[in-house]
């Protein structure tokens, strides 16, 4: 390749993985990684989890690895415009970088509650700054409201309870985790949150949120009001597409890429939370995922294709969530499933397998303490990838090793 080199915008999971994957594949030209946060790249999942090292920031790679691998990391620098014809990227500070191939790994930004500005008391959660601002309210005598019963909201509720904070969680839908998690497991999680003392209000309409001097007042559609120290809004995220959209790249619920993760400009790739892609294991349906492993895997495939390979991205979607001592893991996409088979591993650990009309395994969701469901979910992922028609009786019987079905 020429000497313009490889440029990556966004130093999160996807961007960092891609930068190192370029070197692991023997690329010798320049690799420039641009990130607008003032930190070394860090992992986001711990930000919402009450794990033992609460408050510490875990780096994605040790800082010296950038120099060792010959990766130029431009920290705290924002890319502001992209000229497709000139293969040029402009940074906020004025610098212009030319690229042979460009990767957009710009991630996603939290959705805001309509009409509600963030403040000392109103927060969203994406960055380490957000996390430490939220933690300041997670005190023993504190009272926090969480808007949204998605993963981040539920994990924060668990963290709050662990730290002794009074937590009220609102979900507009009739139950938490409406998207992507089967009802049975969502209800089991709800029951656990209730047992831990979280006040859980589902199907509740919020009328007003008043950010005052000494607290935030939330008014409900039914006239009730509550007062809290702080509010965390956890109602999803939207892909950071502005740079791509302004340059004229195709956008479709994220930067639209093909199965090689190429955008509508063949010199430009996209990976991670910012992109939507055809999910080959599910008939090429276009999806956008917000998942840590997906970001890494797409970063590696994008790197291969930036170097001229034609690798297809065909991983089965997978994610996890930790709440209290429970871990939820989901492999695959259950939309289109016509039947569900349960496998009970222990009184606290269960897996649900979702099958299509032909008996093919589409997805598996597991909930249990620690690593209880991990092995079976991983094996289910392999069965899904192979398009296996699995015998429901074998799936339901915990004494049948799933490995034997491979």
């Amino acid at each position: 390749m020429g000497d313009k080199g490889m440029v990556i915008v966004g130093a999160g999971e996807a961007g960092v993985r891609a930068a190192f994957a370029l070197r692991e594949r023997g690329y010798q030209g320049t690799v420039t990684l641009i990130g607008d946060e003032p930190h070394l790249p860090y992992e986001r999942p711990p930000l919402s989890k009450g794990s033992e090292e609460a408050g510490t920031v875990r780096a994605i790679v040790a800082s010296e690895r950038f120099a060792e691998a010959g990766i130029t990391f431009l920290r705290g620098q924002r890319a502001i415009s992209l000229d497709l014809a000139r293969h040029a990227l402009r940074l906020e500070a004025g610098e212009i970088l030319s690229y042979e191939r460009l990767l957009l790994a710009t991630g996603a930004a939290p959705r805001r509650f309509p009409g509600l500005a963030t403040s000392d008391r109103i927060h969203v959660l994406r960055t380490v700054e957000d996390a430490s601002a939220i933690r300041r309210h997670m005190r023993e005598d504190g009272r926090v409201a969480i808007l949204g019963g998605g993963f981040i909201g539920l994990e924060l509720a668990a963290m709050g309870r662990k730290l002794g904070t009074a937590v009220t969680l609102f979900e507009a839908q009739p139950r938490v985790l409406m998207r992507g998690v089967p009802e049975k497991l969502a209800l089991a999680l709800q029951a656990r949150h209730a047992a831990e003392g979280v006040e859980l209000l589902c199907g509740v309409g919020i009328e007003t949120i008043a950010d005052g001097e000494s607290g935030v007042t939330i008014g409900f559609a039914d006239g009730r009001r509550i007062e809290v120290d702080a509010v965390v809004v956890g109602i999803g995220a939207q892909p950071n597409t502005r740079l791509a959209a302004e340059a004229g790249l195709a956008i479709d619920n994220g930067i639209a890429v093909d199965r090689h993760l190429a955008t509508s400009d063949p010199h430009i790739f996209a990976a991670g939370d910012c992109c939507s892609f055809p999910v080959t294991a599910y008939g090429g349906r276009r999806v956008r995922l917000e998942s840590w492993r997906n970001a890494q895997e797409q970063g590696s495939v994008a790197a291969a294709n930036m170097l001229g390979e034609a690798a297809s991205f065909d991983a089965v979607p997978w994610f996890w969530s930790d709440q209290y001592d429970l871990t939820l893991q989901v492999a695959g996409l259950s939309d289109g499933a016509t039947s569900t088979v349960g496998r009970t591993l222990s009184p606290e650990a269960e897996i649900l397998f979702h099958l299509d009309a032909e008996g093919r395994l589409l997805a598996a969701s597991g909930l249990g303490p620690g690593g209880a469901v991990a092995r079976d979910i991983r094996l289910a992922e392999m069965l899904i990838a192979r398009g296996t028609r699995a015998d429901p009786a074998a799936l339901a019987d915990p004494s049948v090793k799933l490995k034997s079905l491979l």
Partner: protein
Amino acid sequence: MSTWIDVCDKDEIDEEDVIRFDHAGKSYAVYRSPEDSFHATDGHCTHENVHLADGLVMDDIIECPKHNGRFNYKTGQAKGAPVCVNLKTYAVKVDGGRVFIQVG
């Protein structure tokens, strides 16, 4: 000083599988490979403090149950993101149908 510690009966570990073994305040993972050889590593992943015994063994690889970080359990080598620190390995012998690991 290093000593051989009795872990378990050979048949308590399935082929291509792993068990947890705790001894003197430390935790280990003891493996039986598809070729019927026995191996041992530190019990916890080098990414987070998660026990590997719930993970999946495939050929020479143990996959961490938490985020699927992969190690070669024969050499301890970390096989890439998210794990970058190798696992410590321990010598293993089978004597009279019992599995022993060398610690210390």
